[in-house]
């Protein structure tokens, strides 16, 4: 492959000729001290809060603290290349990141620089990292489902497009797994997905990207990585940068899903910055505005009104609790900001219930508005069965003889719990979910032994996909549990049951 060097030279020459030389006017300051990701700068008398500044090595900083005699700057990059006495120039702009279709499918750092080695991001669209969230008048109530593909969530705590649903739990309880399954389930639904990794091990992020690639999800997903070894200012900015990129789709009438994994680490990075900047520490040494740090981020997820194009941005923030302590500072803050939470508990996880969601205390404040009618009808029964089961669970351990009604409730409960278990990376289509939950709540599983319930479910789904795909299509088209649809489901289940050997 040879290049036309004459043509290349002529293109470059044309650009040089078009270059209009101007005097560059800039505001400058001098670095007084630098270290640990922050710098104090003397001068910069006209700089405004949050303005971008640049160091001689090209590294960008943000004016964080405006003090009487100096400016505290947080350094978005390697601070080791900065010396005392260096000249700092202000750029007169706010931080912005590239957005648009050019970022889809890429792995970026919080400043928008690609780190997947697939070439530069070619786009003219840039969005500011910090904006004021849309007001009340520009929003529309959440009314469309955002299917995560996880039965327990889509049935009991459904998430709608434009909602913020918190995933909260101890370490290693499956928080990221839920988020990744939700992303994988958006295939073919026209939702652009964003995964913001804050303070994670870069090896874990690499595994996640690999899992997304294998599931074909990288075609519509952008990953923004600010790993554990990246500077605290970059970890602090990462969620805002991801939201800015996702907002491009929201304001253009499309739908987007963003996962913040996880916000506890972003709060810790913000605490580091604030303490180094000598801002007074509050509870747990967090600065006083750590609530604002999260609330202004999460308020940007919304469902827009028809006038603005009806786009939406759904967010799944993740918070890690320590020893199940949900009444600590940061978890309580984020719980009060979000529209519901999914609690994951380690004892459920180790008992084999995965996803380890505690259905009793998990909540979705949008609820039924985010479910299709068919799902609403079957989910109601599911919730009642599980609630009754939880009440009676203690009696099962006594080992006494129970009356038939109580025993029936217990048996149904065991089977429903078994039914809600789901393997990782296998999100389920909503029509399939409806059929399986229908089978459970209408008693079709009562004769199947508990240990065989999952096998039955897998077999039923294969049967549906191979031979009765018209039933699934009917459910998708109608979206409601009409008598006709119900009849079709019932006959499918009976047909499969006849062939199933317990």
């Amino acid at each position, binding site marked *: 492959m040879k290049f036309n060097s004459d043509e290349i030279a002529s293109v470059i020459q044309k*650009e040089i000729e078009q270059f209009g*030389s101007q005097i560059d*006017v800039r*505001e400058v300051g001098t670095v007084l001290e630098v270290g640990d990701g922050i710098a104090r700068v003397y001068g910069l008398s*006209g700089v405004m809060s949050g303005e971008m500044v640049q160091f001689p090595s090209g590294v960008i900083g943000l004016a964080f603290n405006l003090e009487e005699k*100096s400016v505290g700057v947080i350094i978005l990059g390697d601070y080791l290349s900065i010396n005392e006495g260096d000249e700092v120039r202000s750029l007169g702009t706010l931080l912005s990141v590239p957005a648009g279709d050019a970022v889809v499918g890429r792995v970026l750092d919080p400043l928008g620089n690609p780190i997947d080695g697939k070439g530069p991001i070619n786009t003219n669209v840039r969005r500011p990292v910090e904006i004021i969230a849309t007001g009340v008048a520009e929003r529309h109530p959440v009314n469309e489902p955002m299917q995560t593909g996880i039965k327990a969530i889509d049935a009991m705590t459904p998430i709608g497009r434009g909602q913020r649903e918190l995933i909260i739990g101890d370490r290693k309880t499956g928080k990221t797994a839920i988020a990744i399954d939700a992303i994988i389930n958006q295939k073919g639904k026209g939702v652009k997905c964003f995964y913001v990794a804050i303070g994670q091990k870069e090896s874990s992020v690499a595994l996640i990207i690999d899992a997304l690639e294998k599931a074909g999800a990288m075609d519509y997903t952008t990953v923004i990585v600010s790993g554990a070894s990246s500077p605290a200012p970059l970890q602090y900015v990462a969620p805002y940068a991801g939201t800015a990129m996702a907002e491009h789709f929201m304001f253009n009438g499309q739908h987007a899903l963003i996962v913040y994994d996880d916000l506890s680490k972003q709060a810790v990075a913000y605490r580091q910055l604030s303490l180094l900047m000598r801002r007074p520490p509050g509870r747990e040494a967090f600065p006083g505005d750590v609530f604002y740090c999260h609330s202004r981020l999460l308020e940007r997820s919304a469902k827009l009104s028809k006038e603005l194009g009806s786009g939406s941005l759904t967010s799944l923030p993740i918070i890690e609790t320590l020893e199940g302590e949900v009444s600590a500072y940061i978890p309580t803050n984020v719980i009060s900001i979000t529209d519901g939470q999914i609690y994951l508990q380690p004892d459920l996880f180790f008992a084999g219930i995965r996803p380890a969601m505690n259905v009793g205390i998990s909540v979705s404040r949008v609820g039924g508005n985010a479910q299709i009618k068919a799902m609403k009808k079957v989910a109601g029964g599911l919730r009642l069965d599980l609630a009754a089961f939880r009440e009676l669970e203690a009696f099962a351990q006594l080992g006494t003889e129970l009356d038939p009604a109580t025993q029936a409730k217990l048996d149904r409960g065991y089977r429903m719990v078994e039914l809600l278990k789901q393997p990782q990376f296998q999100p389920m289509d909503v029509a399939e979910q409806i059929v399986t939950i229908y089978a459970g709540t209408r008693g079709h599983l009562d004769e199947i032994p508990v240990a065989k319930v999952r096998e039955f479910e897998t077999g039923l789904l294969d049967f549906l996909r191979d031979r009765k795909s018209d039933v699934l299509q009917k459910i998708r088209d109608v979206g409601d549990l009409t008598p006709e649809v119900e009849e079709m489901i019932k006959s499918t289940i009976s047909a499969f049951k006849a062939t199933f050997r317990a």
Partner: protein
Amino acid sequence: MSDQAKKIPTVFDSEEQHVGEVYARALLAAGQNSKSIDAIVDQLESLVVDVLDKNSKVDYALSNPKMSVEDKWGMIDRVFAGKMDPTLVTFLKVLARRQRLGSLRSVQRSASLLRDQMAGRIQVQATVAQELSAAAKDALVENLKKVFKKDVRLTTKVDPSILGGLIVRVGDTVLDGSVDGQLAALRKTVGQRAENALRTVADSLVQSN
């Protein structure tokens, strides 16, 4: 690391700068009462440049905390009494009592700035690639007066690395008309635009074999 340390000018201490500003303000206020501000500021400048910079022992003696205040007063009286404005002599004694004689340089800098501010003058530093002739300097001062619409006090610095043109600094604002700066801007803007342009016509650039 030591090479980098040499490139950096004197360590900048903002606390010291603040102290200098406070004392300079007081000095000029006192001078205003006796109507001899210009004389005071010029004498202070001469003190720093001609005496302290050239005689490091005097500098050391004045700022030495071990020397008692009375001794310092005696020294100031003996050396400066007849040759300096009395307000300035008293000022030096006040500084001695407050153990702030080490901040004389920053006092002088701030005093000079404040005097110019009060007189409606701005201090401008110009960096040039080669030494300017007197005529060129005057022309530059005239131009700057027209641009800033104020009286201008010009200091120049020679830095061959800017390759040509002029960098003018007023307070915290820098106007960069240097050749080096233009080349950097050229590299950046043209580089980006050329890259984009090449990308759009990328197919036509490749010769089909």
